[in-house]
């Protein structure tokens, strides 16, 4: 084992200083060191999308990033996006459409969906399905999620116009 490495980063708007082992991945750092357990670990090999977070504005799989790579970075998790209200309308749409059952994929799904809606204000169902196709949900069969994202996009356009 190598010695811990000091890192400084911004997590959900708060400065965090920590000493981490080089092998520690970002998902485990968020969950075990910062106790931000909304970032879920489903496969630990970058396939399921449950650990999706935002790093410097881009969505990443936190199980495929190392904590040491986060030095100087800005990390946003579902807790931060919830508290800022950025995804409040998306969450409301998920609730109204029952677009979650066990909820384990939901934080990652919401972050991936918000990423799409920032890039494309008017995605069609096919585009929604494609953008979310890296996020595994075993419960819903996806249709309710697609519906919720679609209705959020429409509502946001309506609010703008």
């Amino acid at each position, binding site marked *: 084992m190598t010695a811990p490495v000091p890192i400084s980063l911004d997590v959900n708007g708060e400065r965090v200083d920590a000493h981490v082992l080089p092998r520690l991945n970002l998902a485990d750092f968020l969950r075990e060191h910062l106790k931000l357990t909304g970032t879920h670990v489903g496969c630990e090999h970058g396939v399921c999308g*449950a650990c999706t977070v935002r790093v410097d504005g881009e969505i990443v799989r936190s199980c495929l990033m190392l904590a040491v790579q986060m030095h100087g970075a800005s990390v946003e998790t579902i807790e931060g996006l919830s508290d800022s209200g950025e995804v409040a309308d998306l969450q409301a749409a998920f609730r109204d459409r029952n677009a979650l059952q066990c909820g384990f994929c939901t934080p990652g799904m919401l972050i991936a969906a918000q990423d799409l809606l920032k890039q494309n204000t008017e995605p069609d169902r096919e585009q929604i399905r494609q953008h979310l196709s890296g996020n595994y949900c075993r*419960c819903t069969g996806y249709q309710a999620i697609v519906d919720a994202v679609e209705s959020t996009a429409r509502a946001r356009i309506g609010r703008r116009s």
Partner: protein
Amino acid sequence: MTVASANPALSELDRPNSYIGKVVPRPNLERLMQGRGLYVSDMELPRMGHVLFLRSPHAHAKIVGIDAIEARHMPGVIAIVTGQELGAVITPWVGVLSHLKGLKSAPQNAIAIDRVCWQGEAVAAVVATSRALAEDAAEIVRVEYQELEAVTDMRTALNPETPVIHPSLGDNLAFERNLDAGTVDAAFAESDEVVEADFIFGRHTGVTLEPRAVLADWNAAEARLTIYQGTQAPHMVQNIAALHLGLEDSQVRVVCKDVGGSFGIKVHIYADEMATYALSKLLRRPIKFVADRVESFNTDIHARDHLCKGRIGLKRDGTIMAFEIDDLTGIGPYSMYPRTSAIEANQVVNLVGGPYVTRNYRARARVVFQNKNVMCQYRAVGHPIACSVTEGLVDLAALKIGMDPVEIRRRNLIADDAYPCVSPSGLRFELLSHHAAMTKLLAMMDYDRLRAEQAALRKSNIHRGIGIASFIEVTNPSAAFYGVGGARISSQDGVAVRLDAQGSVICQTSITEQGQGSESLTAQIVGSVLGVSMERVRVILGDTDNTPYGGGTWASRGAGIGGEAALQAAKVLRKNILDVAAAILQSSPGELDIVNNAVVNASGGSPRIELRELARIVYFRPDTLPPGIQPELMATRHFVPREYPFAFTNGVQASWLEVDTDTGFVKLLRHWVVEDCGTIINPQLVDEQIRGGVVQGLGAALFEKCIYDERGQLTNANMADYLVPMSGEMPDIDVGHVVSPTSETELGAKGAGEAGTAGAAAAVANAVNDALRPFGAIITEIPLTPQVILTALGRI
């Protein structure tokens, strides 16, 4: 036919502001959406150790020796424990039930002793202060194995030259069931056509997004074990843990917080979970086990691995004369505990031919041991196999006589007015609606238009197919499922409801929540009966210390059984509230009602007293009540079905898809389901259960397979190689309903959790064969991978 409620006594539910039949959001979704749920994998306790199980790389091997001397001195290591050492605190078990006659299995240990029987079986537990440190130490534990011949092919498992995995059992046959109903030989002799096929079902697994997770906390001072576990059956876990750790049930508390998916995967007792309970007791501290994804693939139960020879006889007019099946399944080296691994094959025997009129049915099912991971009950146990075999045969029969697949079903499905009736395998059907469901399905999918579109597209070399699958589903199981076989798995559920001191309602139920909506349906029922708004009903589930005793949520039983208990408990509380209200108001209970959180005049509805005020008087000023009045603002009721062993439901599914005959890829275009689960408590929750279930069936149909090599090595134990349905490949799914409530309960609800999975693969397989009809290719194997399709087309 949309059956009107057959339950006139539903008056308590059929009230103004009733939540029954309404779409209302599930309570407490905010918590999950904000990442503020509490899954077992999130939990930490003081002095908690993490266990990593060192697992066998061999499918079958003798354990010659385990050298952990050096590893014990690695940083953070708390203990390294072998099976022998753990045997001091936990006893082995045998997964059999007496009603499955002849079922046998061998004693299984929490951690293997002397011998491993599948790749992935635990041989030692490495406990450390973190999972990472446990993994470091595990790397230098040296286990010496002597490899033994692995029994992997179920087709040769019973051959005399094949080694017997458990010599004490005499052979590799775990269970066999034979059924011969009606006059099968004569029926085949009288048939104009007889069609046979071999159906092959891939072994697959549940892939819950949160892996299995358990945190066991033995308090040596209290002599009490608290188990935090994502389980569907807390009281079952309590009983089994106590039994094998030498404790009373009262010394074990099972707490089930949020669960990241279950689907039957988390209704069993796994060896590594038993080992975790035992390690906590042995090491006198909290021990946490969270499976990683590779472990999940190697140790979460697998399901479905069946080879089923099917035969159907029919007349030229389409009359089905007889069904016959010979089913073979390999379940791994042990029958799972405590539900056993014979149930799926047993269900296949029960269910084949179930939607149809013919009385002639012969079946044989054999369940064999093999050196692969254990198999057991996963969502829709046995149904996808029975449905695929039955509906595959019916389609092949229709093809043989040149009849439309819908027409042959029309001529053979049990008539909607023929109930109650009994199937050839002895299943009792109270009230099903096959024809009504088919009529509705055809309208939803616009069958004739779709057929025309299919024909038109054929001309431009586009090959689309329509597949239909009728099905029945076992729900609301009584004690006939497990209890009669000696398993201490409760088939009854209990609900306690009380009015708190501010007029809100607290409801404790023995059913559990894994996302199906148990909490919501309970609150909807209780709120409706009591006249209390849902946001004032708090539901507590998943804690053996704080809920009535009951079965939990599995086998599509939560709404039908737990919901009825909630209804009956709420009725008692309602009566008790009105009795007190009458005393306070100098009225009579019959003149009062509860609406919108207040007692009102039954006629006219004018408000009399808020529940909040009534509760204040009862709890804080009982001195002001008339003499002799002792309010009981808490009521408990239990329920179990007694009349019918199972409340059967029915439905029909249709798939519309396109096969690329050059690449073998299948594109799912649309899927339709009509099902009949009786009274619908929350249409949105039912529809989403159906959709989620369908997609699990679609995964089995097209993608999912645990691929073992001939030495018993699982070669695709990761999510990159084991394919699951993702949003990009899934179609939109239209869901419709026919409503035939069960008269066994006042609520009238049957289960809906497994209907989607039951018929989805059959519909897809029939649709693929329909698409490939011009090529003369017939496939009776799932998953329908490009390789399977191109092979059938003779392209590879």
